[in-house]
């Protein structure tokens, strides 16, 4: 279980997260929902150790992530698919995946099984990442993370700007991961995706988490998402 306990996070002097707590179990999907600038990306970066946490702690099973050097966090089983993909632009598809494989020490079987999920990438192994289409880039960002054989995966708006069939593919992959007992943290703006997939939903408002509800509660009351996302 990944657990975020009352963290405060700031960029230099500007505090962005306030006493924020979250938890997600293996084999379940936690959706983070909030407006632009609420602090969703900052939350995921804090889990990855990319921004120092000032107060509180983050743990994964027995491991206290907040005391690890940032580059050791992926090795403890946590993979990150960042907002805007952030591929290694000048490296090829295969090299981007190799970086993921190195992080986990996973071998050829992992590589092959990831490519099976994204057959489109198979045809483009030697193409530079920056020359892929938007949808292919998102697949590669997912593939690179999956090469790390994660026990927890953090996905920051993986369906942003994609056409419906591509969104469908990403959703299928996420459900597949869930069935493999991976813990999933999903930042998502599409209400229908949240309703369809979430086991629990954490609302984030100005860097705080006023409430977390279960997926079923949400499905009984779909307009609650709108309340947290909609214009004031």
């Amino acid at each position, binding site marked *: 279980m990944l657990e975020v306990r009352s963290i405060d996070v700031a960029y230099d002097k500007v505090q962005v997260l306030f006493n924020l707590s979250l938890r997600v179990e293996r084999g379940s999907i936690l959706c983070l929902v909030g407006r632009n600038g609420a602090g969703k990306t900052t939350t995921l970066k804090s889990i990855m150790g990319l921004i120092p946490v000032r107060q509180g702690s983050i743990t994964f099973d027995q491991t206290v992530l907040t005391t690890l050097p940032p*580059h050791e966090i992926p090795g403890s089983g946590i993979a990150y698919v960042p907002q805007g993909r952030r591929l290694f632009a000048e490296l090829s598809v295969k090299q981007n995946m190799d970086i993921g494989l190195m*992080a986990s020490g996973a071998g050829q079987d992992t590589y092959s099984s990831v490519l099976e999920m994204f057959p489109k990438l198979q045809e483009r192994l030697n193409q530079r990442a920056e020359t892929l289409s938007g949808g292919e880039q998102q697949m590669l960002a997912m593939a690179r993370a999956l090469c790390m054989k994660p026990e927890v995966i953090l996905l920051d708006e993986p369906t942003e700007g994609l056409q419906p069939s591509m969104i469908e593919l990403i959703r299928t992959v996420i459900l597949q991961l869930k069935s493999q007992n991976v813990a999933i943290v999903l930042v998502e703006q599409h209400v229908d995706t949240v309703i369809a997939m979430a086991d629990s939903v954490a609302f984030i408002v100005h860097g705080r988490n006023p409430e977390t509800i279960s997926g079923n509660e949400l499905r009984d009351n779909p307009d609650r998402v709108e309340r947290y996302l909609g214009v004031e």
Partner: protein
Amino acid sequence: MEFGPYLFIASLEGAITAAVLALTAVGLSIVFGIMRVVNVAHGEFYMLGAVFAWWITNLIGGHPAVGFVAAVIITPVLVGVLAVIADHLILRKIDYDPERTIVATIGLLYVIQQTTLMTFGPEARPVEAPFNKRIALPWIEYGEQGLALIWPWGLSTTTYKLAVIVAAIFILLMLWLLMTRTRIGLIMRATQLDREMATAHGIPVNKVYALVFGLGAGLAALGAVLIVPIQQAHYLMGADPLLLSFIVVIIGGLGSVVGTIVAALFIGLSDGIISVFFTPTLAKIIATLAVAFVLVFRPQGMFGKPE
């Protein structure tokens, strides 16, 4: 000597400058490209390379080749280790902040220079070349019996000078293989492209930086070891290679290794040719003008990408 053979010998001298400059400038270029650090002390690592080469060859004695081979192997490693220590003690402490690293490496420049002066003294130190056979070079001339090979007086070079060019090409080839064909090269390139994402994929960015800083310094030192049998070692010799490396890196395009090598060839050759026909000072003036033109008309350099 006539113009043709004269130009030929000038180009050969230029090629030696170019070869050593390429090694030195590529060191500066990878440090800037991967770490975003402008290393003002780069010329001092070059100087250390030359001085250590003298020190090691003297220490070992015997046939010049024995000492020289030892210097070629030990010097870059020694200078690289010193650079890694400087990275730990200085650059890491200021978190590789672009502006503060400039000031810090200016300080490092003087620390290295003055320490060398105090330890090894102000004299210029010669190093004997491991082999140094003079070879006369032929020239083609149209004479009474048609085209003929002649050996003009003064048209000659040494086996060692040719070996410097071959060695530089070999080292650059090895570096290219390292960057494109190995795991560590892949890690270095990923770090260059996106430091934060590299961290998020388990890459220990600080270790990569230390390695790159050591590698950059080692390349400068290696260039100096190669040139020292031709030029002598001296504690102030780091200034020119620093200036020329900056010129080359800017003309070639910041962070572009290929651009750096092409620009080193261009600047090295023109430096050799202009120095022989006119004066070394004019060569430096023209190189500096070339930088000014590049900055005005193509600020990203010949091979750089626009920001």
